[in-house]
């Protein structure tokens, strides 16, 4: 009996070993392929070609690995990559990998271990972190005149161009707008969306006064995370209404949060019990959206790229929603509204196949036909003139032109705390947390804002003195034209 058991055990072990060896596919293990990445499965014959930068001597093909964190456009990009791999005459094969979680940490690990991919989808934290350490390739060395002409409007000094070097080319963008429920406005007897901050407060108050009995309130903001709430709203109001970016005045080279007082005072009213949707202090953006979709919130401010898809697919909405420019104090617009560029890719400067990376990048991600498809599919709002010209935008953009990046929107240069994020050490709370304390608490607004200016200017001064922060002062800076 014991003898039989031994044989069975040996047999089982042999079966297991053979089954492991006999697998017909193998998962690629390069680049720390765990960490939530969607790793492409390669056939057995590709097993030996596991290095992302290694030239494949057998087939004379050069493999270019691309990392992205975007899932929403994966179908279109995968299709484009497949077409490119099948048709390119440069013997380049592109491998497109999506990292759904811990993208920035995965990039850190890859650089640390010397196994960074050839092309990395741009995120502001990753770009800014490695900007000064020379990890990103200068694209201007590859750009021909045609390319420069096509993308000239999105190359902005201080945003993607530093000391004449261009690091990424944004192709789409997002910004903040006021989203409002047309049915609620009609019920409350309001004919048009507000154009001034004062009107906005009054409209929100009116909605709450008239309709709170039905559980409908005038205004909401996702204040569980002050950064989430204010970055999508108040920072854009400061561009338009104050000509400042994150409190920074490019013409004086100083932080001046004192000018935020009228906006913060209006927000304090908006978030008061007389107006705000109950529980805003603990509201995340998605629960807020569910309540807006359910017809419980009159208006809120959020990003243009996300909301149309949310109310079409994620939280289908029966009421009609509209979109308008973000109201500013007295309707006095003194600056262009900033927008966040997206759809950009960074090239790893240490890649052994930098030329091939550029070729693949240009053919796939900077191709005008691909960018047109991207825009027409509603995957992103194009900011490239040639693409906009030849495209038929999705219906939602035709119905709501305020969703598009327009002539009153512009790219702002980076402020010192964005450009030198790891060396810009502000003591005490950051600006968004301070805004939250001023809006929700009893702290004196003028004193609180002055203290904030003092702390940010102290951090700036200390960094400049130490040589870790470069002074940014733009003579003749025009907030209506911040990218020039």
């Amino acid at each position: 009996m014991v003898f039989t058991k031994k044989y069975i055990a040996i047999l089982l072990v042999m079966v297991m070993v053979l089954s492991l060896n006999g697998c017909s596919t193998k998962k690629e293990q390069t680049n720390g392929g765990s960490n939530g990445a969607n790793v492409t499965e390669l056939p057995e014959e590709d097993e030996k070609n596991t290095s992302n930068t290694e030239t494949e001597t057998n087939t004379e093909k050069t493999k270019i690995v691309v990392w992205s964190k975007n899932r929403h456009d994966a179908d279109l990009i995968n299709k484009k990559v497949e077409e490119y791999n099948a048709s390119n005459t440069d013997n380049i094969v592109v491998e497109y990998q999506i990292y759904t979680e811990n993208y920035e940490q995965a990039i850190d690990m890859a650089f640390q271990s010397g196994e960074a991919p050839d092309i990395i989808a741009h995120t502001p934290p990753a770009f800014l972190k490695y900007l000064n350490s020379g990890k990103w390739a200068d694209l201007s060395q590859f750009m021909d005149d045609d390319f420069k002409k096509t993308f000239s409007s999105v190359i902005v000094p201080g945003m993607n161009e530093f000391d004449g070097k261009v690091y990424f080319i944004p192709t789409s963008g997002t910004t903040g707008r006021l989203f409002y429920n047309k049915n609620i406005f009609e019920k409350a007897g309001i004919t048009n969306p507000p154009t001034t901050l004062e009107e906005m407060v009054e409209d929100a108050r009116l909605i709450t006064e008239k309709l709170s009995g039905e559980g409908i309130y005038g205004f909401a903001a996702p204040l569980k995370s002050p950064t989430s709430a204010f970055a999508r709203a108040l920072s854009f109001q400061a561009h338009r209404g104050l000509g400042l970016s994150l409190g920074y005045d490019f013409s004086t080279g100083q932080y001046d949060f004192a000018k935020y007082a009228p906006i913060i005072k209006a927000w304090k009213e908006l978030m008061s019990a007389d107006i705000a949707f109950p529980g805003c202090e603990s509201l995340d953006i998605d629960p807020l959206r569910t309540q807006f979709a359910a017809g419980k919130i009159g208006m809120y401010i959020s990003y243009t790229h996300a909301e149309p898809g949310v109310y079409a697919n994620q939280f289908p909405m029966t009421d009609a929603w509209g979109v308008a420019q973000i109201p500013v104090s007295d309707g006095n617009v003194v600056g262009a509204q900033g927008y966040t560029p997206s759809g950009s890719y960074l090239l790893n400067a240490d890649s052994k196949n930098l030329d091939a990376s550029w070729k693949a990048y240009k053919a796939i991600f900077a191709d005008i036909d691909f960018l047109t498809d991207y825009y027409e599919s509603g995957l992103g709002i194009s900011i490239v003139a040639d693409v906009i010209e030849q495209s038929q935008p999705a219906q939602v953009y035709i119905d709501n032109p305020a969703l598009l990046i327009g002539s009153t929107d512009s790219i702002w240069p980076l402020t010192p705390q964005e450009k030198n994020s790891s060396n810009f050490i502000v003591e005490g709370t950051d600006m968004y947390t301070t805004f939250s304390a001023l809006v929700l608490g009893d702290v004196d607004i003028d004193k609180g804002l002055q203290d904030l200016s003092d702390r940010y200017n102290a951090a700036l001064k200390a960094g400049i003195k130490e040589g870790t922060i470069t002074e940014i002062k733009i003579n003749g800076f025009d907030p209506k034209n911040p990218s020039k």
Partner: protein
Amino acid sequence: MHKKITPPVSSEKLKRSIKENVKSYSLLLPNLILFIAFSIYPCIWTLKYVFYRYGGIGTGEPKFVGMDNIMRVFRDEVYWKTVKNTFVYAGAKILFVIPLAFLLALFLNKKRRGNGLLQSVIFVPTIMSSAVMGLVFYLLFNVYNGQINNYLMDWNIIKQPINWLGTDNAMKTVIITAVWGGIGNYMVYFIAGLQRISEEALESAKIDGANGMQTLWYITIPMLGPILKIILMLSITAAFNDMSNVMVLTEGGPNYSTMVMSLYGYQFFFPISAGSIVTSQYGYGAAVSTVSAAIAGAVTIIYLFVSKKLDEVY
């Protein structure tokens, strides 16, 4: 038979001791290696960065700044607010969780049908992820469609929904969640302690005419003394380090009203707000964590000292 490990006196004796106890040391070795790798090394790493300014991988070389980070901790008003919050949170949690766990243990320790099942049900929150727990409580307590408000309004206990996660109530909600999450664990400790009390002692008290309360007061509680000391010590250290349910439930808000010191330190290593412009500050995070550990350690030492003195008195 257990072999006694004799304390070494000289190098000769040490060698002999190692030779004699090689089996014991080899059994200790795997744990010792893991302990050094995952407890001692991270502590040393953290202590080192207290004296450096460092933003993490890719942000350049760490810069030695001496005592700057520690001095900043003492100037940081928000940090001291989190220390106060931690004491309120830990005090309230221990105040509720220990008596409730003890009462549950007393009730469920008796041989009664269904007690085993009840013990398991009450223990479930202990093995649940505290992040999941935080999310479930967020859904239960949210002001606009949370079930807690719905029930209270259905039963006419309240007329207007309570803002459970607002500035005034958020800490209470966090404490309720923590008590619910911790009660099962301490109940099991108490049951283990109760089962060690000899039946003879309880029967003697009964024969001597002691009623239930007298037996509880004069026999059960004093005999639970040693395990109660351990439970209290564990609950103090756990309460001072809790953070995951706070992170999910409130992210330390609104306006830092539920921010505890461990979460405050954590966010300098891993900024918690999505899209935050606050970047990692490993050096300052290490300083905050070190001062917080010293505070939690001091509280534990004071507790041990007081309990030792009480032992001497009684």
